[in-house]
């Protein structure tokens, strides 16, 4: 006589999967210590994934921010002749052939999505009476730029640690913390430097140091001298022109459309670069798949533990399986019980990992990790802040949790299926 004839089937099916889940849930608590081990394994793996993804996202964000704030903005315009000789940072090739930057900025501002347009000058200077022989002069509209962006990404401030910013038009500069340390110079000292003007003339300048800044970005803290844009524009005989224009968009996603519009506006004699074209930004994007592989290896190793446990459970409950089979549970249902049990273990374990990982990421998203201290100046070549904030967002947490559950489930499917091949009568006899 089969179930159907007994009229059990329908009723049994109604409660079907829910009942199985209930059984599976109860089962996981039968051996608490074993269960906790499973939690721990998946938890550790997921914790690692959360923390590591947060760190990588944090690094990517740091690189993006660094590239955007110090180098390219969201979009940067230089002349094509400058681009051809960019390693020399020449000021002889201004944007749009020396056209007034204010007029250029005004027309660029009309492009939808453009929030700020700033002129910048970056050029080499040789220091005449200093232990440091070379530096980079950086002319920016200090007040405007500082209002638009946090130049110190770690403290989310303008980064000034001593004194004040150079006054517009004055013979004043600010130097980086590392530069100050290495050269032994401080506020009130004069730096005597030489640079080359837009007309190839030698220019000598001895501005006074009014401020010391720390952007927590080693390259700038070590090499850059910040001066007022207009002062430098005058010193270098740029007239109304500028060496480059950096454009900040309302949203970085608009960069591509702004790039196209600016290129269109200024023509082919100028090179318009989008921030995402930066080499390091591109590299970081390409490295991501590598990390996914490492994450998977972690999860697979953790899954071994769950597989192990499921195998054990099946072995241990072989009599039960026989019993259930005899009582009319189909093989499919028996497999489901074990499968759900392993999913529970993976899900709870992953949840624990997400919680702990999330707390760690959350803490370090407020209090940065000082990579600079850990690794010295290793990152001097990379456009990256010395301190890294872990990125804390729910996407990372959910992704890690799902990765954990899915991988563990897939792997435990195999031993669960094994339970289906237990012969009920045989099992009962053991």
């Amino acid at each position, binding site marked *: 006589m089969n179930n159907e004839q007994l009229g059990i089937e329908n009723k049994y099916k109604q409660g079907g999967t829910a009942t199985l889940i209930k059984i599976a849930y109860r089962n996981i608590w039968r051996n608490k210590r074993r269960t906790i081990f499973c939690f721990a394994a998946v938890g550790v793996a997921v914790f690692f994934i959360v923390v590591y993804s947060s760190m990588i996202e944090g690094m990517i964000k740091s690189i993006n921010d660094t590239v955007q704030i110090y180098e390219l903005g969201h979009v940067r315009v230089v002349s094509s002749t400058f681009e051809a000789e960019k390693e020399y940072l020449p000021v002889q090739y201004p944007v749009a052939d020396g056209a007034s930057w204010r007029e250029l900025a005004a027309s660029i501002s009309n492009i939808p999505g453009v929030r700020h347009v700033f002129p910048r000058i970056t050029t080499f200077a040789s220091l005449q009476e200093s232990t440091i022989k070379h530096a980079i002069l950086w002319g920016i509209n200090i007040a405007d730029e500082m209002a638009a962006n946090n130049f110190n990404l770690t403290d989310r401030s303008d980064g000034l640690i001593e004194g004040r910013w150079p006054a517009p038009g004055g*013979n004043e500069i600010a130097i980086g913390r590392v530069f100050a340390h290495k050269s032994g110079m401080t506020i009130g000292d004069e730096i005597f430097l*030489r640079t080359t*003007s837009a007309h*190839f*003339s*030698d220019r*000598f*300048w001895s501005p006074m140091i009014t401020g010391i800044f720390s952007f927590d970005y080693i390259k700038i803290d070590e090499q850059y001298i910040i001066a007022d844009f207009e002062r430098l524009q005058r010193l270098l*005989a740029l007239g109304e022109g500028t060496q480059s224009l950096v454009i900040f968009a309302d949203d970085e996603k608009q960069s591509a459309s702004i790039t196209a519009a600016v290129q269109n506006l200024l023509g082919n004699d100028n090179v318009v670069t989008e921030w995402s074209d930066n080499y390091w930004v591109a590299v970081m994007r390409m490295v991501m798949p590598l990390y996914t592989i490492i994450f998977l290896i972690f999860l697979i190793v953790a899954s071994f533990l769950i597989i192990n446990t499921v195998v054990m459970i099946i072995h241990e409950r072989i009599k039960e399986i026989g019993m259930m089979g005899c009582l009319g549970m189909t093989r499919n249902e028996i497999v489901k019980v074990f499968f759900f049990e392993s999913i529970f273990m993976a899900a709870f374990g992953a949840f624990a990992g997400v919680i702990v990982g999330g707390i760690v990421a959350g803490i370090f998203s407020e209090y940065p990790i000082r990579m600079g201290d850990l690794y010295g100046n290793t990152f001097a070549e990379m456009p990256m802040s010395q301190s890294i904030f872990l990125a804390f967002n729910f996407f990372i947490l959910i992704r890690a949790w799902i990765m954990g559950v899915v991988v563990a489930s897939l792997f435990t499917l195999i031993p669960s299926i094994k339970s289906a091949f237990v012969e009920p009568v045989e099992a009962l006899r053991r």
Partner: protein
Amino acid sequence: MKKKLFFIMLLASVASFAFAQTPTAAELLARVDANEIFNTIEYDGEMIIEHQNRRFVKTFRGWGRGNADSFIEFTNPEDRGIRYLKTDGRLFVYSPDTERITLISGHMLRESMMGSDMSYEDTMDNASLASRYNPILLGPDILNGRPVWMLELNAKSRTESYPRRMLWIDQENGDLLRYELFALSGAKLKEYNLIRVEVIDGRRFPVEGEMRDLLRRGSRTTFIMRNVVLDRPIADSVFTQRNLRR
């Protein structure tokens, strides 16, 4: 030429007399060395630099006294207020941006002056050519249709910046029409050509010349002098550091 302390002095003419018969090499060189036909000079200068398909025009006011002293002040808007003082074998620059005087020395001497085809060092040597070079008269030649004497100079010391020079001197009027500067290996580094001579107060005076640094692709610098006033006394105070700072 090199003896002319300051680059603008390079344009100063050679003594304006014709050579009656073939002179010796030493005579020719002595004349080139002794060619200051003025005691003092005042002029408005213009320097046209063509480099990397761009053209820069720089104007200045210049004062000179003998071989030893010169003073120039730039007047074009981009470089206004920059002053150079050459005195006593040393070159100083005053920059209005720093309000400070700098001695040009060391590695800087090798670099291009104001973006021109001359280096600072080119403007610096002050000992006479005759004391530094052995001249050889290569004989008569024709340059741009004019008969000239060709003179080759070889450095006496192995530490001379330009170990070899070639000079083309007009046979008729003694103008230094052309000269070339060579590297140690004998390869040509720079060349100068006289473009125009003016007669001022009855004396021949080179007012326009062109210098090319052959290593700078397609680059040349043209010097033009206008409103030249010769032999009007200039106060000592012009050639002082105080005047630089004024």
